[in-house]
């Protein structure tokens, strides 16, 4: 029976899935973060730019679809978070906007700012975008300073439903230790994935060796951030919501969510094992270059549960630290049953979309990228 509640859960799962895919596809950003760190010669940098440059639009599109899906299924989140955490979202957007043009412009004559400027934009996007996205997602567990009052619509002079209480427009999120740990975790994960993808996609022994060194460093930093996140997440009080929709603080809420939803816990552990296996095999075996195909799916499997424990099992996924009862839950922030049902039907097209993306991904990646290919065919 497809009930309203089922549709809310279904859509939260889709948001979680898109979130997982987005974090995996942040390998594009991670690869860009390495342009100057791993790429020491022009040839190496050009290879790195062209490697992620053939996939950046998928990351971009996933981000846009993630936003669109949130808008369609949980419009009160879209309204409250984007309108309130103004500076965080604007900063994320600006880094992506610069990225969008930088691939195309960086090596073209007449680009005004010069090649290195556009590569620096790519690197800044590579570091800042995952960091900011991580900080924003961290607030799903720690809360944000907003108030929601739907009766305000009758106030002719100021009919705004959602109001941000802090003057910092969302930037206050980075003053929270958990959010900071989360931000670093996502950033280092993106670099790990970027290194793994480039090792798989580029045929260049010298660059490959440098990428493996970067992989080791970023993986250690990722593990430190991951441990910090997990220790805090599993010991913190969480935002519980009862059947009447009343939100209250519950000790060990997120640990309880894992334990009360064992499938989600198993998914997280499986994802973590795959992710670690992908990295460790790459580090231990000099000829092994398929780590991304373990770590990538592992990332998706590990990220989905983080979203699920934020929204499932009677949890407020976007809590308010200013007014507990303004916190957003799946039930109080979702679209109408008709819209969720209609959009659920539309979402059935997603497997078809994934299938054609996978087909053409294989076609385009069947041979690793070489310096010769860049000289002989179209390239950035």
């Amino acid at each position, binding site marked *: 029976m497809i009930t309203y509640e089922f549709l809310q859960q279904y859509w939260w799962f889709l948001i979680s899935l898109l979130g997982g895919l987005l974090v995996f596809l942040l390998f594009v950003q991670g690869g860009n973060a390495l342009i100057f760190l791993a790429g020491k010669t022009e040839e190496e940098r050009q290879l790195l730019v062209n490697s992620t440059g053939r996939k950046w639009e998928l990351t971009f599109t996933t981000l846009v679809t993630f936003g*669109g899906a949130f808008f369609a299924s949980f419009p009160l989140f879209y309204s409250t*978070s984007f309108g309130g955490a103004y500076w965080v979202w604007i900063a994320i957007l600006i880094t992506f906007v610069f990225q969008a*043009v930088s691939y195309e412009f960086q090596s073209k004559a007449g680009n005004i700012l010069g090649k290195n400027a556009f590569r620096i934009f790519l690197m800044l996007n590579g570091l800042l975008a995952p960091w900011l996205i991580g900080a924003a997602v961290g607030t799903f567990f720690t809360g944000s300073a907003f108030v929601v009052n739907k009766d305000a619509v009758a106030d002719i*002079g100021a009919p*705004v439903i959602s109001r941000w209480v802090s003057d910092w427009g969302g930037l206050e999120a980075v003053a929270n230790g958990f959010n900071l740990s989360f931000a670093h975790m996502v950033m280092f994960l993106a670099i790990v994935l970027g290194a793994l993808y480039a090792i798989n996609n580029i045929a260049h022994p010298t660059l490959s060796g440098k990428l493996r060194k970067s992989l080791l460093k970023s993986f250690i930093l990722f593990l430190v951030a991951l441990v910090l996140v997990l220790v805090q997440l599993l010991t913190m009080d969480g935002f519980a919501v009862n059947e009447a929709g009343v939100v209250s603080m519950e000790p060990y809420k997120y640990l309880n969510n894992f334990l009360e939803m064992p499938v989600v816990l198993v998914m997280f552990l499986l994802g973590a094992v795959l992710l670690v296996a992908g990295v460790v095999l790459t580090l231990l075996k000099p000829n092994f270059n398929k780590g991304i195909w373990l770590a990538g799916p592992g990332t998706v499997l590990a990220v989905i549960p983080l979203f699920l424990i934020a929204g499932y099992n009677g949890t407020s996924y976007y809590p308010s630290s200013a007014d507990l009862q303004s916190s957003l839950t799946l039930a109080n922030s979702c679209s109408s049953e008709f819209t969720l049902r209609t959009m659920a039907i539309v979402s059935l097209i997603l497997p078809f979309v994934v299938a054609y993306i996978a087909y*053409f991904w294989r076609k*385009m990646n069947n041979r690793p990228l070489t310096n010769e290919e860049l000289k002989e065919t179209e390239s950035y």
Partner: protein
Amino acid sequence: MVENALVDWSRAQFALTAGYHWIFVPLTLGLAVIMATMETLYVIKKDEFWKQTAKFWMKLFAINFAVGIATGIILEFEFGTNWSNYSWFVGDIFGAPLAIEGMLAFFMEATFFAVMFFGWEKVSKKTHLLATWMTGIGASISAIWILIANSWMQNPVGMEFNPDTVRHEMVDFWALVLNPVAIVKFFHSVFSGWMTGAIFVIGVSSWYLLKKRETRFALASIRVAASVGIIGTVVLMLSGDGSGVLVAKYQPMKMAAAEGLEKGGECAPFSIVPGVEIPGMLSILATHDINGCVPGIEDILNGYTDHNGISYPSADEKIAKGKLALEAFKEYRTWKDTDPAKAAEARKVLDENVDYFGYGYIDSPEELVPNVPLVYWSFRLMVGLGCFLLALMVFVLWAEWKGKLTSMRWLQWVALWSIPLVYLAGQAGWIVAEVGRQPWVIQGLLPTKAAVSSVSVGAVQTTFFLFVVIFTLFLAAEIRIMLKAIKEGPKI
């Protein structure tokens, strides 16, 4: 209290983003069809010339495409950052087309663009051709969904107000998709892209003719572009006619503003420029009937009865009904959990006046009139330039067919300098559509001033100027890179 300055700066920021976005999108839409046609000729004729011709235009396409994407993502997220109240109040309806656009169109564009640009040696000829067409089709599908969303703002259908959730909710998805305004707007916008792409290709090709280089390439490009452009502009004009009828029906104030019509009625005249009118023409254009009633600004503000005997209330009456609806909404919210009888009474009053809900936020009838001179002159610019550009394309194609184009240098100059004109026409069209519907963000339901986010004026001013700098930098870089690429020329 929502400050007027906040509303104005938020509008300015959205207009800036949308205006810049519409510099890049129409060229994407038009160039996609032109280069796909060229590649089709390559596959059919097996002539390397057509491959290189297509590849040259693809190079320019790619430069333009990137900036279109950059401005597009800001537009989507601005609905949340700057128009958060709007996002909740109608997000139940408006969010759906945006999500579908992402799932259906953006992934298609992203996947096939990479195949089209980098896949010449990686996939077969036919698969590559498919990728080129799919990139263009993806762009058009994207246009369908965002225009469905925009058209719903011009003519809201398929929803009802729910005072419990305090928002409009979708009740009929197909009414949204098959909204007549959306259908006409799709053809009008997408085919204006065909015209833009065609004029761009003709203009650049004319530069080669002026420089007496790449002659075969230039003439072949002109033939394809002019053919695509003429087809596109004919559809553009037919859909423009349909758009006029729908605007007159659903947004009479926009029509009155576009005509500068203070007092209307039956057999209304069409103003070519102030003081020069064609009697009865506006009635024909707006209603397809010379005796059709087209109300003027004063008629709409004072109330009027049309040629079918239907009476429309005055602005004051609408505002009064709107205030009644808002008050009833407030009452309903107060009593819904404690006094069902009082809540039911309030609900009845709300339901009776809900069509005028948005008028409750309006302070005076004058607020209901958009910027008439801006809309009036933008409309003339759009139509005038559209007619001129169609004539230009027909003439250029005729001259090429007769073998005279290479010797007609004046025509080559005109074609070259028509490139900025086609952009001017496109921008003017959107000014008519968007300024003309003010003060409404959703016609009759939600005024712009009730749709903004609760952010500081300073924050919006800062991001406005930030975007001015970024977009202008991108545009300057794009133009410069394109000029260099054009100067370098195709590899034929």
